[in-house]
């Protein structure tokens, strides 16, 4: 089978014929060899970032790879490789390559293909890989209709020129297939543009919101309130889904709401809010339950106290208020403050104020795991308060993301899809036909080419030859 590489109009000028340093550099930047080099380079260096874990703390690299290699990895920017300067530079090189390549080839390709349509030469038939000539019955004009009919059925466009006693014809279809690669190349620039816009004008953030709380959205004129957070489970106990009910507030007024879950973000004024994590609040409770154990060992009924609520302690004349909470109790002896050592509920403790006649008379931390550790009533003889239970509160972790480049990236992907379709599924086919009368005989010379997929074209070309021959004999019969 003859190879038909047929890139006549897309070859750049060879490097050897280029004079001058600028011209040589330009030649290199326009070459497909450079493209091959850069694509393979990108493939190879990208592997590094999949083997070395990205964006960890520096500590991690020293611990995993040792001092020497750790230093090396950090110096080369391999900790965040895909954003390192040198990686960006390789991407920049391919951009330059695409731009120069297009400037170099596109105009001549355009002119050639246009020129084909206005001023065609039939003499090239001899040079084509697919050509044929044979004798037909009838006169040239009688063959014309049949030929045009076949071409029309096969969706070819054509130009026709009278030549002496006969005519010359040029037909083509699928020119757009030749521009598929240009669409694809431009689409890459569009996608990169979108990525650049995103990295300059977008931001990423993360907020933790407790159920019932309102969060300020960074760089925006609205707030979000979390009305509810809940989880769904499979029968097996595995988590099926996390859900948050978000209310959008503008100037304190409710302007919209949305139930979000993993895979279903809220999109408002160019900003997206994603369900990304959840947990138990480490500094807030919805309520707590305390019990008073009197000096003679009797227990009172449990007292239910909501967050920041005051409740009387029966039979004592005191009342008690729940004012603070930590999930993992710790005490800083220098600043004399209580704090939570972690986000885990390892050592929960609640802080209460005790009132008498509307005035604070005492304050105490009650530890759930260590009852009776502290004096918890204003006077030790009045007994001890025990933290009997806590009602935790969930928070929802919300990722905030603004990326004005996203839609440009999708646009680029769309153009790339078109480009691939044109490149791989639309074939540029061209035919040249001459039918002339020589010494009373009607001679047909025809040839054609396709830019790829010779198998397909073989069939089509043979069909055309066959139809011409049959059609000719038919018209011959009519003349008789």
């Amino acid at each position, binding site marked *: 089978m003859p190879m038909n590489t047929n890139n006549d109009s897309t070859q750049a000028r060879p490097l050897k014929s280029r004079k001058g340093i600028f011209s040589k550099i330009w030649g290199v930047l326009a070459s497909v*060899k450079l*493209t*091959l080099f850069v*694509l*393979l380079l990108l493939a190879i260096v990208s592997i590094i970032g999949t083997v070395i874990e990205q964006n960890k703390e520096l500590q991690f690299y020293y611990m995993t790879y040792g001092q020497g290699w750790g230093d090396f990895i950090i110096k080369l920017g391999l900790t965040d490789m895909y954003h390192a300067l040198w990686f960006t530079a390789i991407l920049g090189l391919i951009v330059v390559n695409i731009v120069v390549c297009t400037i170099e080839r596109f105009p001549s390709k355009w002119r050639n293909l246009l020129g084909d349509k206005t001023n065609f030469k039939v003499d090239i038939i001899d040079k084509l890989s697919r050509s044929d000539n044979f004798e037909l019955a009838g006169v040239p004009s009688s063959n014309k209709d049949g030929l045009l009919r076949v071409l029309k059925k096969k969706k070819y466009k054509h130009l026709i020129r009278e030549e002496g006693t006969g005519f010359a014809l040029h037909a083509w279809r699928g020119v757009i297939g030749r521009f598929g690669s240009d669409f694809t190349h431009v689409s890459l620039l569009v996608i990169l543009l979108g990525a650049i816009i995103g990295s300059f004008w977008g931001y990423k953030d993360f907020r933790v919101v407790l159920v019932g709380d309102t969060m300020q959205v960074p760089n925006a004129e609205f707030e979000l309130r979390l009305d509810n957070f809940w989880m769904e489970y499979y029968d097996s106990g595995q988590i*099926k889904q996390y859900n948050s009910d978000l209310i959008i507030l503008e100037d304190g007024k409710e302007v919209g709401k949305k139930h979000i879950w*993993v*895979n279903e973000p809220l999109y408002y004024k160019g900003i997206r809010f994603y369900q990304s994590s959840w947990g138990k609040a480490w500094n807030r409770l919805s309520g707590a339950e305390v019990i008073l154990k009197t000096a003679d060992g009797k227990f009172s009924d449990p007292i239910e106290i909501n967050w920041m609520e005051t409740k009387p302690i029966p039979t004592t004349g005191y009342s008690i208020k729940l004012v603070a909470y930590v999930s993992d109790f710790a005490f800083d002896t220098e600043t004399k403050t209580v704090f939570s050592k972690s986000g885990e509920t390892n050592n929960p403790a609640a802080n209460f104020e005790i009132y008498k006649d509307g005035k604070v008379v005492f304050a105490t931390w009650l530890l759930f795991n260590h009852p009776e550790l502290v004096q918890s009533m204003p006077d030790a003889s009045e007994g001890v308060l025990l933290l009997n239970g806590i009602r935790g509160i969930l928070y929802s972790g919300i990722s905030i993301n603004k990326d004005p480049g996203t839609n440009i990236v999708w646009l680029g992907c769309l153009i790339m899809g078109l480009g691939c*379709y044109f490149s791989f599924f639309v074939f540029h086919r061209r035919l040249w036909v001459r039918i002339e009368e020589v010494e009373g005989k009607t001679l047909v010379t025809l040839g054609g080419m396709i830019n790829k997929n010779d198998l397909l074209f073989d069939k089509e070309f043979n069909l055309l030859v066959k139809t011409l021959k049959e059609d000719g004999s038919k018209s011959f019969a009519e003349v008789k």
Partner: protein
Amino acid sequence: MDQPKVILSLMFFTMAFAFYVVTVLCYIGNWVFKKKWLGQLATTMTYVALFSTSMILVSRGFESGRAPFSNLYESMVLFVWALTVGYLILEYKTKMRIMGAFVMGVALVAMISASMLPYRFKSVEPLNPALQNKWNFLKDILEPFGLQNYAIGWLDFHVFTTFIGYAAFAIAFGLSIMYLIKDSYEKKDKRSTLIDSFPGADMLDELSYRSIAVGFPFLGIGIVSGAVWANAAWGQYWSWDPKETWSLITWFIYAAYLHARVTRGWRGRKAAYLAVVGFIAIIFLYWGVSFVLPGLHAYA
């Protein structure tokens, strides 16, 4: 806890496995002994194997109550299915059975690898929160029939298109190996009854290009739909996680292949080597990344 039953799909798997063994043996027999009836039997067996593979997917769909594209085992079966369909198209278009020994050979190897997956990959696991991405319009359409669980989303679409791409690359891989063998024989003017029955080197080159011309856009659509899904689930269309990066790496290799074909000095053998390297990268993307490298992808 009640595990959904996977008996039917495992039964079809076992049958399909046997059919692929027979198919490949027939194709090899047809190639080596040049018996026409072996070739016809091979083609028939390919259809039988395809039917059985389709039934794995269908029964799997019933067993899990959702579209069957969500873990390594299911995607492996999908790959074999697409590869078989692709091969049958190739055979129909070229009317040649020689390539069956190579292309269906790849399908058999894939079946063997799938059968060696640990049981936890074969059983039906519930979807974790990030994997529950369904197109609402499809849910709405299927709801009246009680089939809303079978709605697919970006994720399924992503897996589906990616694996059609892989299957096309697998065909190109088989053809490129044949090309490399045939080309070296043609160049040195060596003869061998086994190799002479291959299609010409030019034709093998053209056919493997056509396969890659199908695989390249499908892998592209796969990467993009994966990005759309990531954007919905994590708020980022691209995060350079190992699986994403590897899919980009293979895509770069095949882009290099396409450009090698229009470059003097790279046409032919070097391009064919790239098609082979590209497929090796896919195998790594498929298995290596899942088992060796850390990442977000729970399935292939």
